[in-house]
């Protein structure tokens, strides 16, 4: 089977975003980037399905030139080839535009399955995969924690709220948005990294943005505190001492 995995390049989680001069964007100069976490799980799931059923794993990203790094990493982990919809503007558009661009890039690929992460660590729209399914005319399931491919259908375990799950079956081809924790991640081996150098990254150029964005950032801000936090300062032992005293005398949660 042929499986596409959509992978977004996002700033690392440790990075503290600083708002730029326009107040609509962040200073990316000091960021380092990585593969969006649920997308790494989606890739792993695709590699497991290929081991079981044979076929090909194609990874896709839509983003500026720097985003090719996540494709290289995916190829090193075992993906067969890659598609990069490359455009500087793609780093500041909404899910509507990104999904349209990804749909155009993979439409002719004769895919059996498309996997995405359930949401991105930076924008967190939780929309791109679902819109992509609509654009490709595919049935979909979101927040998926298990995938069983049958003849011409797929049976998936959806996570519901509060520890509930549900199996759902649908015909192939289909699109699934994958939840973190679905499998155990493997990392690239040296052999994989060497092999990746010979694999193809096909570049796709956006003639004009596929669609006008529907959601536009007006301004960015830092969140306001809702609660007055008492900060305990000093050396670790001073802070610890202060905290224990507060928990005993003020909060009265310790004997």
């Amino acid at each position, binding site marked *: 089977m042929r499986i596409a995995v959509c992978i977004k390049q996002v700033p690392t989680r440790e990075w503290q975003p600083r708002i730029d001069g326009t107040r609509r964007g962040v200073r990316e100069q000091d960021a380092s980037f990585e593969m969006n976490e649920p997308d790494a799980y989606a890739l792993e799931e695709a590699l497991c399905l290929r081991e079981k059923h044979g076929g090909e794993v194609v990874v896709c990203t839509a983003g500026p030139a720097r985003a090719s790094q996540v494709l290289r990493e995916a190829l090193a982990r075992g993906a067969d080839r890659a598609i990069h919809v490359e455009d500087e503007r793609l780093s500041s558009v909404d899910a509507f535009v990104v999904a349209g661009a990804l749909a155009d890039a993979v439409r002719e690929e004769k895919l059996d399955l498309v996997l995405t992460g359930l949401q991105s660590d930076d924008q967190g729209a939780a929309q791109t995969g679902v819109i992509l399914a609509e654009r490709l005319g595919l049935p979909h399931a979101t927040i998926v924690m298990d995938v069983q491919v049958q003849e011409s259908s797929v049976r998936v375990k959806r996570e519901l709220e509060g520890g509930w799950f549900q199996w759902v079956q649908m015909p192939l081809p289909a699109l699934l948005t994958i939840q973190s924790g679905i499998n155990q991640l493997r990392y690239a081996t040296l052999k994989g990294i060497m092999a990746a150098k010979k694999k193809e990254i096909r570049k796709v150029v956006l003639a004009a943005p596929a669609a006008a964005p529907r959601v536009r950032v007006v301004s960015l801000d830092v*969140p306001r505190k809702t609660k007055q936090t008492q900060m305990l300062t000093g050396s670790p032992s001073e802070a610890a001492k202060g905290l*224990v005293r507060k928990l005993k005398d003020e909060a009265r949660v310790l004997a």
Partner: protein
Amino acid sequence: MIVVVAEQQRGKLHRASWEVVAAAQELAGDQPVDAVVIGANPAEAASELSQAAVRAVHVIDSPLLEPYTPDAYTAALDQAIAELKPSHVLLPHTYRTRDFAPTLAARLNRGLVTDCVGIKPGDKPTFLRPTYQGKLIAEVAVEGDVPHFVSIQIGAYRGDSAKRGSTAAPINTVVVSLDASAIREKPEEPFQEAKQAVDLSQAERIVAVGRGIKAQEHIALAETLAKTLGAQLAASRPICDSGWLPMERQVGSSGQTVAPKLYVALGISGAIQHVVGMKGARTIVAINKDADAPIFEIADYGIVGDLFEIVPALIAELEKT
């Protein structure tokens, strides 16, 4: 007109539906707010919602809407929206909304703002939503033709602040035509995994570890603190995803909801999906090396620093007494 799409399960209204009514009333100004209840025989939920100060409750009732599928929901709401012609459609940001709302908005070529935590009403309203894992708040505008779709983060509005009507709102039926053969998803019965051996909901004290713990071998450090405090050990999702602690110790929207007297968060950033599971704790302590971590927004006491220095000091201090 603003439409609230309520969520219900077998006649029982999801409590977040009231929160969305509150949000819609804030957005509306003097425009009317209508509610839509969708499902198979959702009469009970519709009657509960008719207590809200809304102009009308519209019921979409079809046996093909139970169990939930994105195909049936999208087809039904597409038709209802064409009939009602709202300017905005508000929904709770639940797992179900995540599953069908992007399809619906995309099919209509309309914009959808997800996970909204605040609204600036007006001629051209804007919406506030967290980005970068809650480290920033983005104010966004929706472009293009109406209706504009907005999903509201659970807990962002208070359900009890939604205005109630002096009399019950009229309940209408919206007739939709659904084609069973066009529903591609075949759901089975929902289920829970094997009975949870650890019931964190009863714990008086909890020490919870997050990704700041760095490696599996350091879990022992948190365990020692938990023992010293007489607390249960819990974790954020990534710790359970990595298999460092069992799933049953996960706190949050996809794990357990807890309300201990004391909750100590070690190296947890405070993502909304974690916070919904523990914000009911009476006293929250956060230890995090990042002074800007969102967890400090809800903590009563905080220490900014390296947990590998703070936790041993804390254990030593507790053992003294």
